[in-house]
């Protein structure tokens, strides 16, 4: 078996770091957008208005039943074409990052919606009765009383889902976008050191996700005590 040769990593560091920045950018923006859209979906799903709850339930079930990589592919293929016809953007502009962001946000929102719904339902009904009895509207009750409490119950799960998303961003390789995984792959391919680079990338993903999970557990314990 050939010796491992790690020598191509230091030289490629700026390129790898740029890839990591793309990965983090996708993760953070998709988590933020996914939480906002997921919150709206969760509220719709619990609404008395049948059409809204039906829409939210179908949305969640749909996105939870199709593979993420397929959603990504659709968005790489469909969104650029759509943007082109809508805003007549020149063909040269690179929409890969934005379509990846939209795809992740829409997909993750389905998962966030369920986490948020469970969080909202974990706040006792007595709390909303008390808020309503004080004359608050439904939306004030939600914003001022229910959500703040629900959030602290669901932060660990939201973070855990964020860690999963961080790993899933590697799927953007289907559009050959240079996220961290894509960058590592390209470097390895170029230097004929694919095995080393993929091992290295795996170790980095592991180190980041493992320590993030530990951090979440730590917060969870502190919140629980």
């Amino acid at each position: 078996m050939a010796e491992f040769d790690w020598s191509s990593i230091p030289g490629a560091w700026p390129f790898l770091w740029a890839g990591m920045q793309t990965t983090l950018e996708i993760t953070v923006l998709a988590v933020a957008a996914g939480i906002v859209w997921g919150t709206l979906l969760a509220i719709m799903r619990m609404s008395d208005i049948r059409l809204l709850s039906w829409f939210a339930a179908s949305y969640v079930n749909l996105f939870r039943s199709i593979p993420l990589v397929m959603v990504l592919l659709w968005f790489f293929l469909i969104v650029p074409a759509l943007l082109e016809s809508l805003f007549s953007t020149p063909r040269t502009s690179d929409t890969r990052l934005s379509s990846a962001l939209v795809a992740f946000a829409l997909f993750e929102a389905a998962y966030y919606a369920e986490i948020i719904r469970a969080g909202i339902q974990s706040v006792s009904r007595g709390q909303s009765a008390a808020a309503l009895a004080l004359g608050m509207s439904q939306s004030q009750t939600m914003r001022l009383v229910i959500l703040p409490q629900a959030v602290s119950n669901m932060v660990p799960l939201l973070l855990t889902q964020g860690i999963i998303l961080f790993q899933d961003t590697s799927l953007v390789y289907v559009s050959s976008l240079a996220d961290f995984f894509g960058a590592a792959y390209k470097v390895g391919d170029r230097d004929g050191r694919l095995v080393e680079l993929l091992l290295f990338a795996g170790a980095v993903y592991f180190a980041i996700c493992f320590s993030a999970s530990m951090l979440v557990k730590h917060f969870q314990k502190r919140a629980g005590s």
Partner: protein
Amino acid sequence: MISIRNVSKHYGSFQVLSDCSTEVEKGEVIVVCGPSGSGKSTLIKCVNGLEPFQQGEIVVNGISVGDPKTKLAKLRAHVGMVFQNFELFPHMSVSDNLAIAQIKVLGRSREEAIGRGLKLLDRVGLSAQAEKYPGQLSGGQQQRVAIARALAMDPICMLFDEPTSALDPEMVKEVLDVMVDLAQEGMTMMVVSHEMGFARRVAHRVIFMDQGRIVEDAPKEEFFGQPRSERAQQFLSKILQH
């Protein structure tokens, strides 16, 4: 002030309230008692529209609660309610618990709301606790804060749903004392409670419910003297043994 006329409510085929009628005049204190599951909580929650009902009419201060055109939030802002489990907002300090609805619902300024809250905290003997969180208070203290929170909205009447039944026995008195004060100041009160001592001291009338019906609705002296229904007699003798 509160007029309940032939109110019925059911969950599917289960009848929770059957043809309930009673009146609460301004300044009157009514105590509602009855066995578990008899519909006391449901009835009192119908008064501020927290529970919908299918038949009959409830009018509070001239406003019909069941009317779909009624702005319930506006009515509730001036109908105080105190719950068995206090239901203070655990993520807010005591002083914010008192201020939040004054600011968001009545549109008072923050200073005004905090000031009014502090006055009411003082009244229930808790001005030293203003900056604490509900979780740091005893049950009795929490319930007194909950009463102050309702009073901060300048209610025209107050509804209590078993305000002392989740409390340790040694804390019941501090809450009842606050309620007795309120009653003596002329607050209109509808109180679901098994505290017969409280009823004897300040109630004008006592209502006894059983299986969703108002079985007895009598002036206090009459109720404690000689309840007409056998169920009420049994219930009273059971309670008084404790």
